[in-house]
């Protein structure tokens, strides 16, 4: 899957904005949003928040976890832990990327936050690489990937599943032969096909 498709899935997540305009409820197909009252926070899907922000119609309220203290703690925990730590958001990387790109002015200490999140991502990526290697070496036919976010899982594609597919092929019982070969019987039948001898 393309990373922008994963991003697309994450964009339906709700986030708080502070609108600079007034408007009635908007009846989207996916449900109602609003009403919008200037300076009163309201929850909208992420894609809409970015869209409104680009039109300078709102400020975005960063999610609670997007602060230095909490992220530092998370980073330390991720370093200490052998397994993957549960992230405060299912799409932490995407939210961070979008907000840091489009709403930097709404986030305090944005640059530091960017660095810490990148650190956390990198630590997790390196854990992912060693687990992928272990999985292929052990020829495991099943593994849990709990606490990994969708974007992180997607970074294992296509290498991990495709490598396991090949391991599986190689492990398959010795006796199996490819189906393309014909047996002696059908061979003689077809070599006589159309010849005048076939009675």
């Amino acid at each position, binding site marked *: 899957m393309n990373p922008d498709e994963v991003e697309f899935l994450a964009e339906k997540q709700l986030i708080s904005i502070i609108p600079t305009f007034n408007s009635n409820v908007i009846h989207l197909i996916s449900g109602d949003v609003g009403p919008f009252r200037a300076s009163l926070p309201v929850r909208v899907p992420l894609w809409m928040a970015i869209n409104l922000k680009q039109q300078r119609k709102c400020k975005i309220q960063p999610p609670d976890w997007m602060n230095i203290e909490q992220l530092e703690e998370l980073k330390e925990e991720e370093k200490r832990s052998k397994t993957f730590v549960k992230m405060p958001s299912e799409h932490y990387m995407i939210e961070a990327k979008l907000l840091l790109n489009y709403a930097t002015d709404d986030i305090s200490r944005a640059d530091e936050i960017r660095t810490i999140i990148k650190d956390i991502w990198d630590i997790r990526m390196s854990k992912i690489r060693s687990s992928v290697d272990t999985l292929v070496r052990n020829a495991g036919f099943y593994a849990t990937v709990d606490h990994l976010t969708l974007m992180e899982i997607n970074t294992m594609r296509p290498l991990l599943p495709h490598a396991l597919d090949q391991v599986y092929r190689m492990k398959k019982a010795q006796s199996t032969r490819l189906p393309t070969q014909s047996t002696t019987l059908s061979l003689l039948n077809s070599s006589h096909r159309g010849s*005048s001898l076939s009675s």
Partner: protein
Amino acid sequence: MSAEKACALVKELHRNQGTLPPYNNDLVNEVTKEITQLIQENRNDAQESERSRGSDLLEGVSYISTIRVRHAAIQRNLRCLLAYHYNRVRSLRTMRWEFGSILPADIKANLSTAETNWFSKYSSILAKYMRSVGEDGGVNLAVDLHPPKALYIEVQCLVDYGRYELSDGSVLLLKKNSRHFLPRVECEELIRQGVFQHIVI
């Protein structure tokens, strides 16, 4: 005998992955000739084996293993021949999605007559399917290939394209290097066809 020519057809596709080389009529003819000859030889030998088995006087000659070797060669030639045509058709299919229903002239020139026919047949099968989806006259599956990010995007024209009509009826003159700010849905196909380049700021 060892299906070298047939394999050369397949190698030709392997060397040209991602494009469609000219249809190799000569080589295809040589392969079909080889197959026809092998079949004929096998028939003759089968008859001779049968005849000698029928007569008590002669020491029977068995061509069973000869026939078997040739049969393997026939099967192999056939497989390569079909794989050549199958994989070419699969490329044509991809081209229908990427270039649209009208192929560039130099690509068209690389097709056999049968392939040209197949291409138009595929185009109409596909169009018929797209029209049948939903209840309101169908869905165009050749657009909306990417998750939408913005309603309007900036594009630069890469060729002198000429007049281009938008869905609201207005007409644009597309010149090489001209820049436009257009609804994404209106540009997507031209970007895929290499007329526009999407400018990301």
